[in-house]
């Protein structure tokens, strides 16, 4: 069952979610496709692709809660990475200032 969060309409701190590049990246050299992250994440960020080489993919990046890294804690091989938090918070601040100027 897909959980459609209508990413187009989502915002984070008043900034459209679609322009905030926060979601996990999978290091396929480390990932063992245990799917613990997929089982854990309640926002359907990940999806399983049984017939493909990379059985785990980030399917709904904009469902990912900005600044949440909880799924990385479930990853035994430490295969999940996130952007630099300070870069993202600075970007959000910048975008907010810009929108105030509009």
């Amino acid at each position: 069952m897909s959980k459609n969060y209508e990413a187009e309409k989502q915002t984070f701190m008043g900034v459209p979610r679609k322009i905030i590049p926060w979601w996990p990246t999978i290091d396929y050299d480390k990932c063992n496709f245990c799917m613990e992250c997929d089982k854990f994440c309640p926002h359907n960020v990940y999806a399983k692709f049984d017939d493909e080489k990379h059985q785990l993919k980030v399917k709904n990046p904009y469902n990912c809660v900005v600044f949440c890294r909880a799924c990385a804690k479930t990853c035994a091989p430490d295969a999940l990475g996130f952007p630099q938090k300070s870069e993202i918070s600075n970007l959000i601040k910048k975008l907010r200032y810009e929108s105030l100027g509009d």
Partner: protein
Amino acid sequence: MIARSVALKLIEKCPEIQLICPVLLNNGDEKYEKFIKSTKIIVIDGCMTRCATKLVEKREKKPFKRIFIPDMFKKYGIKLTKKLLLNEENENLAVQIMEEIIKELEEVEVKEILKSSKFETLEFFEIAVDKYHFKVPKEGYYFNENDCWIKPEGKTALLGISDYLQNVAADILFVEFPEIGSEIEQFDDAGSFESSKTVLQLISPGTGKTIRVNKALENNPELMNQDPYQRGWFIEIELKDFIEDGELLMKGLGYFEYMKEKIMKEKNIFEHIESEKNV
């Protein structure tokens, strides 16, 4: 020798405990005089002369705990030897005494935290949805969109999770704190908590240094569910620049509106899923 060993083991285990040198105290060191008045004193007397007790009594201070080493030998069934150097049995006794003191200190600390007297009465924005009831304090608290709050008080601030997040998490069973002294930036993971349903992080609404954790949550994690804005606080930080933190935070009313929208969206999704099931 054992009294000294107990004292050294105590400060090794709990760096926040400070050692008072009886000789300097006797000479009337001013720094010690102030310190003694403002803190809990643990007196460790090694022999019958009880110098430490006398020094504290002279200052009309009631010790938090008194340890008389010869009594401890009896209590733990250990024989006194005439040798000056500590043997293995004596070292073990020192560890036992140290653990006894720490246990008592922790119990008292938890009781002090549990006393809600230091918390004022809060006024809330409230909304009930189905069987759930959500509250947001009207004043004094600031929120991020990750459903965590910060309550600044001068140069320090308490941090915790919102009523919404505790409702989502359900019964909280375990907590994991950041280390005391650790530096936390805004939106860093400032510890986690585990419920019967999931593991969640407290995403820090502020930047600063961790100076205190709510030890009461170790034995009573349910306080986060029962009283998320007061007795269920998570950690305390020394603020770096709250004005800067505030740029990405919401006040009570702003968060209440955001939370309501989120609850209604989730309610719609849930109802949609349920209706699909029934088709």
